[in-house]
């Protein structure tokens, strides 16, 4: 397996608030679904901005599919990595849904006559094709985030970074976005690498691997099944357990194993019988 993104010995300081990352390393494999979790101000969003070259780091290196991130490769790297931001309103450039998806294509100088088909295909993948002519203020937050996903998909990226993309959504919108992500992963399999920055543990549990960042240090880096057994350590990092795991803990079940809500429900019902 090749690495989609390799971060090696990264050092970064905020312009005014002092050092955040000191000798930080993390690699993300191609086709992997990685969650990056951490409490507020742990540096997880900053990391995403560093990968996309929106911030300059001091030392170390970031490679995207082997290509070193620097000024000359910035455009090439951004053409492979897409990002959905937290606030649905602040990333909507176009006046309508279709115009917004078109924005990235226009930047890439795609000929006008090829755009409608590409826009429709991208919108279909997120289930928003029926909304092509709608204006952003008539859409819900979840719909806007799905449009943001579509406008990235239209550019056919290999990596999509979601920076707290569901944090400002209502539960329904959140579910719709997560559902869309699952479908995309199923469709593209190992051709799509997902990096999901979140502080929602239910969401993080969807990933293949969870990286926990605390004040710029990588403190945990393993599969959710293993990670969520460490209730104590997570609490010390200011993170909550997913509901099913918290319930098992409260029930004082001996030798807990990782279970999703569904699995726990089945297990509990069997227990009763």
């Amino acid at each position, binding site marked *: 397996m090749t690495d989609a993104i390799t971060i090696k010995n990264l050092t970064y300081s905020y312009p005014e608030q002092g050092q955040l990352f000191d000798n930080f390393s993390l690699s993300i494999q191609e086709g992997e679904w990685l969650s990056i979790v951490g409490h507020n101000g742990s540096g997880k969003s900053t990391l995403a*901005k560093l990968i996309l070259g929106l911030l300059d780091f001091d030392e170390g290196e970031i490679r995207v599919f082997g290509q070193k991130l620097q000024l000359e490769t910035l455009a090439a790297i951004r053409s492979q990595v897409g990002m959905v931001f937290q606030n649905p309103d602040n990333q909507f450039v176009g006046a309508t849904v279709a115009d917004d998806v078109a924005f990235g294509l226009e*930047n*890439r100088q795609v000929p006008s006559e090829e755009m409608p088909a590409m826009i429709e295909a991208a919108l279909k993948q997120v289930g928003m094709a029926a909304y092509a002519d709608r204006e952003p203020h008539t859409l819900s937050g979840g719909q806007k985030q799905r449009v943001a996903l579509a406008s990235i998909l239209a550019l056919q990226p290999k990596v999509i970074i979601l920076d707290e993309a569901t944090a400002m959504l209502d539960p329904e919108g959140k579910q719709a976005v997560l559902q869309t992500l699952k479908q995309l992963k199923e469709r593209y399999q190992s051709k799509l690498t997902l990096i999901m920055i979140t502080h929602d543990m239910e969401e993080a549990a969807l990933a293949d691997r969870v990286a926990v960042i605390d004040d710029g240090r990588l403190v945990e880096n393993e599969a959710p099944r293993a990670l969520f057994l460490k209730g104590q350590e997570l609490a010390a990092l200011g993170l909550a357990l997913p509901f099913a795991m918290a319930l098992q803990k409260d029930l004082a079940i001996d030798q807990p194993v990782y279970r999703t809500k569904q699995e726990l429900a089945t297990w509990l019902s069997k227990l009763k019988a």
Partner: protein
Amino acid sequence: MNNLVIGQFVPGSGILYKLDPRTKILMTIAYVFLLVFANSWPTYLWSAAFLLMALVLTKQGLGLYWRGIKPILWLILFTVVLQLLFSGGTPVLFAFGPVKVTLPGLINAFYVVVRFVLIVLMSTILTITTPPTAIASAIESLLKPLKVVKVPVSELALMLSIALRFVPLLMGETDKIMKAQKSRGMSLSTGSLIKRAKAVVPLLVPLFVGALQRALDLANAMEVRGFESAEGRTRYRELSYSKADAWAFGAVLVFAFGFIALNFVS
């Protein structure tokens, strides 16, 4: 604020919707320009007839246009009063002490009202039938010659369309901040004028801070999607003139010749 019709796009199916936005902008400019020179009854009638035709071709109810005029009624009334009182001339119709209302004043006032209403209605027709983005790209296309003298036309057009896109958002935000401040005891409608003016400050500060944050976020989102410069991008919506535009230009020409002729006659 939301029932303001001027500057608002209202979807519809009239012929005017199918015209190229450039045609409509040029038409409106020509109309307004000519109207400034209107000097007699026949020319005003001729102009009103042309406007009526345009109105009908939008296939929108007259109620919509009435709502467009309503917010500026006070402004119209104000100009009427000014015209009535300060036009001078003879014969004097009636007088209150030093203030005289004259016949030329009355006629002038009437002309001003008609001119005002016609201009506002024509611009309302333009914005009702043309989405803001189309207006932005039309302006870009029309200003293209200015690129020769290094005017950043593409950047200006992009800025314009982004600004337009954020108008409803910022309006919603203003409303939200207003409610938040009201719930904390702020009042914009009581107290002396100075007090009220001061009450606007806690409204504007969060609005500006929010707008700046939005601008930064948007810049990031645009950069990530490969935006480098407004130059050299392709266009999703390309403007193209059609047969309807030729008819529209023809109609404007007929109107203009008729207008000039009528103006000469009187």
